[in-house]
């Protein structure tokens, strides 16, 4: 996938990796969403593993992935 995007679309590798980083962050935020508590019930799903374990780890991975994306020296 990396190579395909790099070679076929002729996009610099920085942008390819940045794109994946953004996807990870967005995926994390999407997984973090869901039902909410209200005046009638306390919704225990807001503390489910999907929303407070998996989702934040994906977000963090996305934000950290952007660092190598910026620092990559690339091939001239």
């Amino acid at each position, binding site marked *: 996938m990396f190579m395909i995007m790099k070679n076929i679309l002729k996009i610099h590798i920085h942008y390819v990796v940045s794109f994946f980083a953004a996807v990870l962050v967005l995926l994390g935020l999407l997984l973090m969403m869901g039902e909410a508590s209200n005046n009638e*019930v*306390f919704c225990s799903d807001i503390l489910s593993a999907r929303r407070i*374990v998996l989702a934040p780890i994906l977000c963090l991975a996305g934000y950290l992935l952007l660092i190598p994306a910026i620092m990559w020296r690339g091939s001239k």
Partner: protein
Amino acid sequence: MQQVRFKFVDRIVGWLVFAIAATVYCLTVEPTASLWDCSEFIISAYKLEIGHPPGAPFFMLTANLFSQFASDPSQVAYMVNIMSALLSAACIMLLFWTVSHLMRRLVCGYGRVERVQDLLLIEGSAMVGAFACMFSDSFWYSAVEAEVYAYSSFLTALVFWLILKWEDEADSPDSNRWILLISYLIGLSIGVHLLNLLCIPAMVLVYYFRKTKKTTMWGVCKALLVSFILLGGILYGLIPGVLWLAGRAELLAVNLLGLPFNSGLVGFILLLSILIVWGLWRLRGTGRLVLSCVTLILVGFSCYGVILVRSSANPPMDENSPEDVFALKRYLNREQYEDSPLFYGPTYKAKPEYERKGDFMVAKRKEGETVYRKSEKTGRYMDVGKKIEYVYDQNMLFPRMHSSRHARAYEQWMGGVKGPTMKENIDFFVSYQLYYMYIRYFLWNFVGRQNDIPGNGETEHGNWITGIDVIDGLLLGCDMNKLPADLKENKGRNVYYALPLLLGLLGIFWQRKKGELGRNQSLITFWLFFMTGVAIVLYLNQTPLQARERDYSYAGSFYAFCIWIGLGTGAVVSVLRRLKVGERTSVAAGILLCLLVPIQMGCQTWDDHDRSGRYTCRDFGQNYLESAPKEGKPIIFCNGDNDTFPLWYMQEVEGKRTDARVCNLSYASADWYIDQMLRPANDSPALPLGWDTEDYSYGNNDAVRIEPELYDRVLALYRQEPHTLKRILGENPFDMANILRHWVFNRTDGMSEEDVRLRQYVKALACGREDEWETLDIRCVPTDTAFVMQKPGEKMPLSFVGMDMLLKSDLLILQLLVNDDETRPLYLTTSMNIDERPYLKPHLVLEGLLFRIVPSYTKETETRVNVERLYENIMENFSYGGLSAGNVYADYDVRKMAYGHQHKMATLIDSLLEQGDNERAMAVVRKWQQEMPPQVVPYDAAALSMLRCLYHTEHYTEADTLARDMLSRSFGWLGWTETLRAERRRGSAFTEYQWRCIMEKTISILYNYDRKELLSAVLPEKVLK
């Protein structure tokens, strides 16, 4: 020596420094949550709930990862603390590399490191600087707890180090990547703490000095100007601008097009992304670089998305509920806190200006931007009016005494204020804000610290000292030889004889003597030091009587000073070189000599930064919760940080006592908090308030006046028309239920329209304003003596005598008293200032760390005690945080909470003795001695109950020892306060009074139990002399 070899050695030694720092911090880290905000941060990390403004989403994400390594919930806090420890250790490593970079430039210029002694000097001085910072007071404090300051220091150190990396590579074609990375990290750091932005000026100077061929004064000024524009641009332009645009998009989508909430925000982000991609595609060269930097800052800032998403889920902790873009903006602007004027504004004495409007005078006001609030009912954002700013009459430039709430505190600090004139204003700025709240902290770190007691200018509380008695005696105006043992043995007493300060000053001089390169470097370091120190002082504009010491805010500035301490090694070595003992010998000797400075610091600071084995925050928080019974889903009213956050921590993180509802009354004036109280949380059902949104929404019923003079008039009206009035104002006019229903909330349910109008008329009539009854919306309490009906015929009297008004939080308590069917017990923390709610005072019964609010009342001034419950709690339900180990460090806040427990124990001992239950009284004494030994928490006045009990139960030897100890400590304190210089006496009057009381009471106990021998043995030799 090859450059490659230098890089290798430098890297290895840097990691070695990291390993040492990580070991030091991991050994001393707190094994559970810490006091103040740490509990909040741990909850926000582990369960992604929302902490206080302005939030720390990137901290949440990182700390959440660390919390995953916890084997069970009780280890979560430890793991988050470990994160702080590791980040701080990394920060020390970066300091090492920063000093070694600067030193290399000073010693070898842009050339290679050729000689072994140069390598030695570079590495040695970097080690001196790094270790000095590692062992420094303020930095270590943040390194071992779950606060954002460790993380923020790390990011500051990182971006500063990165700009130096850029300097190394500035001529290579892809050096821009360092600039891009810095932009990104600055964006991310907004999601940790704003402090990071303050190193922009120093970084711009690095850029300027590297890029310009000839540095000039004017060039430096221009560079600084650019840096301030950058700083202001990000803080006041970019971030608020983007949020403003997002707000417009949101209004368009939701209010105009009727789309769901946050759809406008999503649309805006999509549009912005498309624009950016298009821009990056079209632009080349500098334009692309600038756009990339701005984009990366925004990408970093985008971590606030986590806050929006998580707040929308309505978790139990959801401070300010920033779930839409308008609320997020208020959250980021920290609108919950008072802001302080910076350049021009009112003084503390300023009164609102009035202007004539028709027949009335009204307060002059300026209207700011429109305030929008989300309304779930209509699915729209409601315009709730403009942000109002009052116009004040007394304004001045650079106002430093600005808070009207602190009028007395300003005057006390200044010893009287006339104007405030500009001279007084500047005096206050220099003597309090600059000296007391910054320079004192700076000197704590590099000269010495008197003790860990928070100070407000007193001689015995938290001053800076040198450790040289003669100088300290002059500084403090007292005789240091007569210092009481309590102060001498305080673990927070750290003295360095000003050696780190001197070494740092030498570093500055030596750096400046190294030609243009040195002068440029010192200017860069200075701006880092200034922006993270004095600039924060200017910005915060602090008032006296801060809740705690604030040295942690300035860790960045102390970090910068440690750079100079490192460079000071160069100065020492250059002095030693003059002794002509050989190049390498003088370098080695100089380094060893300088290393003694941080080692001496570490020997002093270790004992008061070693938090291992301390579980007080966890246990004391649990004790609050355990004070309430397990049945009935109790409600606990609390007030401050340390009687709220530890309780939340126990519930949210460790899952303890989730049946109890903690309700912080200082938040209860805010609509978002009452929203949360109306929702169930964990196992605790919602508060049975029965309020509608309008009853408590922004600006409604914030305070209701108490009008005692209405009492007679209302009664008279009732006498005239009993049937009608009973129908429209309730059976009894002074029943709290009726007051809330008819006088405060103007409820209309179950009333005919005619009656509602009649009620309005009657109320206006009672107020003597019947002419305008149709337009009036009267909301008040028509008496100062009301009651709550309990069971039929049983009244709970409430007296508002001496109060002007009831706040929203009072209304909340009263509504619960009215609605309560005695199934949900109400509790109040004992740490609360009960004088703020005097009507509850006669209804309190002590049961542990909580008072229960009961219908019956007492006329005595002393609070009642439920001896059985209190005994059970103290002896069985409470834990005492590992203080029994004897070698745990109890800092001031921990001691304060421990004294809270001891005072309850003393009350219990007294009550048991009164009942003649000597056996159980002695059991409490033993528990106390075992759980909180005096070497950890020295006895205070509460221990007199222990003394009485020991004599009463005829434990004479033990009692005599205790009495002798109490007397000798009192004599120590009183003997020392005698030596204070007259003008410093007043500040210590309270301490003196406390110990005088302890002495007198001890003596009277000795008389009571006929301990004449002891008295004659102690008194003549100590007092009569």
